[in-house]
């Protein structure tokens, strides 16, 4: 019983549970918004990467190289204190944009690999039926690419959820930060850190299971 008493004192009393709930909400909000932005950017830059235009290809190349070559924390601080800071934007918004731009670079590579992995015969079949490039891409290549990259894409989303803990660097109160504040206020590291760790684990494990189910449903057409 001592465990529960202690847990109550450290984590729940004095309205501290609200910090956790708030922090969790922020973490989920950043993750979901960032993966949406990242997916949009990823599709856009992936198409640029496979386009014949050297300029578009070059721009996309610079984007993925720069973003993937700089540590996330450094990037986020640049966004917060240099790029968007002077505009006086809300830190949460900056975090969402920052994580979105970062995730987009990884999603770009995932989608590009997916598109290039679709057999060229699929494109030829589409074009030979009179579909134009865009129709062939949208109706034939992308659906197959999406299905093929889904496992990698979901691990990117799960990695993103964990990485949002870096938001603490720019003073956004996410789940990680909430645990840290409770640690400071209660002079107890064990309970807040493990509570936060378990919540992250439930999030990521739950999502892994969920995405696994989706993948199995999408695999219907593969059964021979």
């Amino acid at each position: 019983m001592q465990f529960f008493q202690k847990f109550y004192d450290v984590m729940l009393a004095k309205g501290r549970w609200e910090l956790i709930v708030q922090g969790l909400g922020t973490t989920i909000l950043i993750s979901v918004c960032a993966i949406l932005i990242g997916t949009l950017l990823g599709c856009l830059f992936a198409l640029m990467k496979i386009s014949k235009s050297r300029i578009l290809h070059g721009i996309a190349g610079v984007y993925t190289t720069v973003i993937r070559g700089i540590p996330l924390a450094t990037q986020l601080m640049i966004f917060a204190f240099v790029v968007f800071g002077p505009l006086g934007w809300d830190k949460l918004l900056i975090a969402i944009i920052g994580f979105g731009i970062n995730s987009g670079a990884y999603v770009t590579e995932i989608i590009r690999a997916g598109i290039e992995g679709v057999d060229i015969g699929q494109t030829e079949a589409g074009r030979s039926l009179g579909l134009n490039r865009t129709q062939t891409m949208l109706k034939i290549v992308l659906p197959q690419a999406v299905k093929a990259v889904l496992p990698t894409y979901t691990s990117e989303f799960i990695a993103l959820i964990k990485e949002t803990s870096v938001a603490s660097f720019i003073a956004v109160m996410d789940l990680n930060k909430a645990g840290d504040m409770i640690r400071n206020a209660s002079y107890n590291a064990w309970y807040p850190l493990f509570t936060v760790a378990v919540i992250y684990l439930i999030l990521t494990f739950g999502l892994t299971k969920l995405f696994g189910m989706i993948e199995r449903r999408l695999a219907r057409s593969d059964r021979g």
Partner: protein
Amino acid sequence: MIEVKDLFKNYGENQVLRGVTETIHQGEKVVVIGPSGSGKSTFLRCLNLLEQPSSGEIWFEGQNITAKGTDIDLVRRKMGMVFQHFNLFPHLTILQNIMLAPVTLKLQTKQGAEEYARELLEKISLPDKADTYPAMLSGGQKQRVAIARALAMKPDVMLFDEPTSALDPEMVGEVLSLMKELAESGMTMVVVTHEMGFAREVATRVLFMDGGNVVEQNTPQEFFSNPQHPRTKDFLAKVL
């Protein structure tokens, strides 16, 4: 219907087609044979510009389709193509495979396209496969669906690129007999194949290609019984 004028195709140093000139008339069933590397598949793939010719002209139904500014997508609607590896869309059901192009291009309503697709499935004797996915079909069934998918566009000519080369031997017959039916219905066909029996039975004209050009051509009777060119004789001696 199709006029090819002095067609060249190079891949870098490698000259695959060396000045092919050929006319294919409406209703003809032209079978193209030749050793591998002779350029026969490249020739076929140039006809609907899946390969961009290095030089030369291709005219289809009175239009120079190699001219700049040609909307090749419009031209391809009238040229059906069947591939060696079927290239069915694995994420779509058989019915959706057949309906995709007419519906996407808004040539037919969804309902109209489905009716016609079911009619085609009836014709290829696979009406019960409408809602299954390509992965569940045998090779021969896949190729029959691929033919139906091309026919759904109501093309004026059908191009076949080694349609039976990827099939198990026992499935070759069902695809060839469907192609024969199609030929009898009056379709203009250009077929690249190694099936000499099909050439003999169905072709109105046989082209023998070697070294990037048409070396000899004739009616199947004359071609097989009385080949003229030494390379034709040599090839036929090996395959017959």
